[in-house]
């Protein structure tokens, strides 16, 4: 899949043209090839065996056998039903006996796996065909085929990348790519609590779920989606930039000339990075409840009156502020570390020159430190912004998205981010169809922001910049 795409960078048209030429090439190889090559079209690696390139022959043949075995014994029975996602209902008898029918979940999952494996098999088959041609040419030129040991040796040298990347790519493929494709498909099905495998079937419904999420009428999630999206963006903005500037401020403060115990200050701050968040954030949540430690002590000290407890988590605006503030508590130390490292890289003579020109510290910060920091950390700010859009822990451990409201649909709360809403849909409501749609939209939001901002970054535009 990658091979073809890369060579023809001319978009979709180029892609299909590439496939076209690829097919023509294969036909040509068949027409011009010797008998060994021709047999290899059916029995992969056959030519390699005859030409005594054992390792390659075994590899090709093994792929073919494995693929056919997989499809015959396992893959086909799922793949054949992918159009309907199963039709045989489970039979439920009085007394609790159940005979399970088709399992829509596995039909979809293994159907997708089978399709992907088929594509990969075709790729390997094409490689196999080209391999035959190469071998023919090598022999024609009177050279010998590489020994098995030489083949192996290249895996540690010329083809070392393949050795290094096989397992990581495979891992990403099975545990990220396949599930993502699966969930994208779920967005087009009615997989929810009433259509749950194995006892019930689910099936394709087209764009129905998208229509529901973007429907602004009654029963639709449109206005809720916009409201949650709005807060998600506000949150990501503050969580990124407040942390950034305050973290930088603290770093400058600690690194100030004449400040002692620099290490101690830093150590105190980084405690919040070290302590697992489920401990620290849950504790903080408890501290600030209406009847928690903070309110109780404020009452005991006579600062507030009983009955006027500060609604840290129940007032939506205050809850949002609290979340951002608590996030500072976690985020500032991190940024402080980053900023400390970068500040040390700023050449001292820049400051020296400024000082001679009579600049005060604010001016120096404004015209040297800040631009340098922004320039160097531009891409980091972007990833941290998109990371905050998907920042689950802080919200979930503090408010779980609460409080809810009449104006929000489907269990969404005032402090819910898109990602915590997604979590609620998945875990609490088992509404996988809508969760999948929401997930796709989160992806779209992140992708659009990344694309737009990335091209505006100074360090991308001007690679030389400060160097």
């Amino acid at each position, binding site marked *: 899949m990658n091979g073809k795409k890369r060579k023809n960078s001319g978009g979709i048209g180029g892609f299909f043209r590439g496939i076209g030429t690829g097919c023509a090439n294969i036909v040509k190889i068949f027409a011009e090839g010797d008998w060994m090559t021709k047999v290899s079209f059916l029995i992969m690696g056959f030519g390699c065996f005859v030409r005594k390139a054992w390792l390659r022959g075994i590899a090709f043949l093994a792929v073919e056998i494995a693929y056919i075995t997989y499809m015959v014994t396992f893959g086909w029975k799922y793949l054949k039903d992918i159009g309907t996602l199963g039709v045989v*209902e*489970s*039979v*439920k*008898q*009085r*007394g*609790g*006996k*159940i*005979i*399970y*029918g088709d399992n829509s979940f596995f039909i979809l999952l293994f159907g997708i796996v089978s399709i992907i494996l088929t594509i990969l098999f075709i790729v390997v088959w094409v490689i196999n065909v080209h391999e035959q041609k190469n071998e023919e040419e090598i022999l024609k030129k009177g050279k010998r085929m590489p020994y098995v040991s030489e083949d192996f040796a290249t895996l540690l040298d010329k083809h070392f990348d393949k050795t290094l990347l096989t397992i990581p790519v495979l891992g990403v493929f099975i545990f990220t790519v396949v599930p993502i494709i699966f969930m994208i498909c779920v967005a087009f099905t009615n997989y929810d*609590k*009433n*259509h*749950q495998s*194995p*006892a*019930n*079937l689910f099936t394709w419904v087209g764009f129905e779920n998208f229509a529901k999420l973007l429907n602004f009428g*009654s*029963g639709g999630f449109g206005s809720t989606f916009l409201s949650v999206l709005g807060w998600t963006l506000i949150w990501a903005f503050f969580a990124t930039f407040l942390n950034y500037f305050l973290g930088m401020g603290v770093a400058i403060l600690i690194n100030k000339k004449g400040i002692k115990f620099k290490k101690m200050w830093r150590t105190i701050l980084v405690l919040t990075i070290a302590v697992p968040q489920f401990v620290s954030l849950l504790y903080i949540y408890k501290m600030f409840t*209406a*009847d*928690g430690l903070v309110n*109780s002590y404020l009452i005991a000290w006579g600062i507030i*009156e*009983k*009955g*006027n407890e500060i*609604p840290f988590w*129940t*007032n*939506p605006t205050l809850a949002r502020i609290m979340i951002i503030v608590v996030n500072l508590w976690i985020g500032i130390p991190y940024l402080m570390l980053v900023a400390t490292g970068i500040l040390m890289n700023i050449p001292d003579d820049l400051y020296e020159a400024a000082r001679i020109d009579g600049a005060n510290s604010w001016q120096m910060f404004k015209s040297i430190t800040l631009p340098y920091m922004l320039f160097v950390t531009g891409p980091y700010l972007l990833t941290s912004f998109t990371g905050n859009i998907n920042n689950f822990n802080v919200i979930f451990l503090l408010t779980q998205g*609460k*409080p*809810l*409201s*009449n*104006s*929000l649909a*489907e*269990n969404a*709360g*005032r402090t819910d981010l898109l990602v915590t809403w997604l979590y609620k849909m998945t*875990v*609490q*409501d*088992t509404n996988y169809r809508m969760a999948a749609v929401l997930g796709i939209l989160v992806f779209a939001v992140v992708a659009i922001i990344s694309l737009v901002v990335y091209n505006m970054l100074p360090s991308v535009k001007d690679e030389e910049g400060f160097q």
Partner: protein
Amino acid sequence: MRKTNKLLATSLVAAMAVSAFAGCSKSGDTTTTTTAGGSSSNTTTAAPVETTEAPASYGEGTITIWVAENVVDFTKEYAQKFINSNEAYKGYTVDVQPVGEGEAASNMITDVQSGADIYGFAQDQLARLVSASAIASLSEADQAWVEAQNDAGAAAAACVGDWAYAYPMTSDNGYFLYYDKSVVTDASTLEGILKQCEDAGKNFYMEVNGGWYNTAFFFGTGCELTYESDTDGNFTKCNVNYASDNGVVAFKEIIDTVASKAFQNGSSVSNATNLAAIVDGTWDANAAKEVFGDNYACAKLPTFTGSDGNTYQMSGFGGFKLLGVKPQEDDLKLAMCNLLAQYLTSEEVQLARYEAVGWGPSNKAAQTSEAVKADEALAALAEQLAFTIPQGQYPDGYWSRATALVDDVITGVITQSTSDSDLMGYLESFQNDCISYAE
């Protein structure tokens, strides 16, 4: 979590529950063909293992049981006792895991096959479990046993349509008032309780943003909110009249309660601060005794004077805790699970469970035990239950929607100065959403 709790039923409950609930076998034992997943699936009424002769062995394997944390040891002990009692059972081992009732139901729905073979849950989850086929229907014989042994309310709560699906374990899941009698000397009216708490600078707790608790107000003023479901556990109809004058009265009372200086939202004694009174259930009886000490007292819920000048008695739900068996493909294991579940909800074990952890029996014989009758909290509950409605089935959406309704009060979107017509607007949209869950 809401409604995952336990209460006690007494003969009083049973009597009123009968009148309120149409027992599930009202249409007799006619053979019904149900539809599963919306289209035709063959359902037979044949009970495969209900032969009179017990097999020599029920096979072997592990039976996983999910129950609340505080009865894990208890359940382990009695399940083991049961297995040891008969040579035919000895192929099985029992694995009891602490999984709370709310989580148990969600897990069973997420993945039936990995779920427990036997699990405890609160009755309002039943329809969900049935529609996801995460619970086995009882054979006719077992259903007859359930009806004979348990109070009518509990037996009815185990049914969806005409079939029973679970074994009642406790009669019931309801709430009443615990209070500190040194602070609250007169617990007869809500306004009075709030006033006394305010004066003492102490807190009154009620989880008004819970759909389980706030029915105390709405049902109290005569509003209705019930669902009807078909044999497959799908909701077919919602009977609701919250968007009415009575609904507004109840809603205003909630707003007034929340506005009290003494009010705190919550329903857990151990997490409460500065506690003087709390609306809670029997599961917190021991915790309440520890907190209040000699001043421990409990009573039915108070009355309140509505904005229309009338006095209303706070109402609410009376519910039950059930033990369910997962549908199995293996007949023998299914039979074994049913036998074990039956034993775990039998008179003997229900009484033992009451003695061990204070869960009130649904078994009629167990309810007549002297110890059960003498229980103080149970007496308060019994009194309260006269004013409640037996909890039927509610769709998932209802609970979060009800929380949303009252969260707006707690967050200050809706206040005492909100006009009646706006309140009606909120109730109308709430009512429409409730109706939409039954489509």
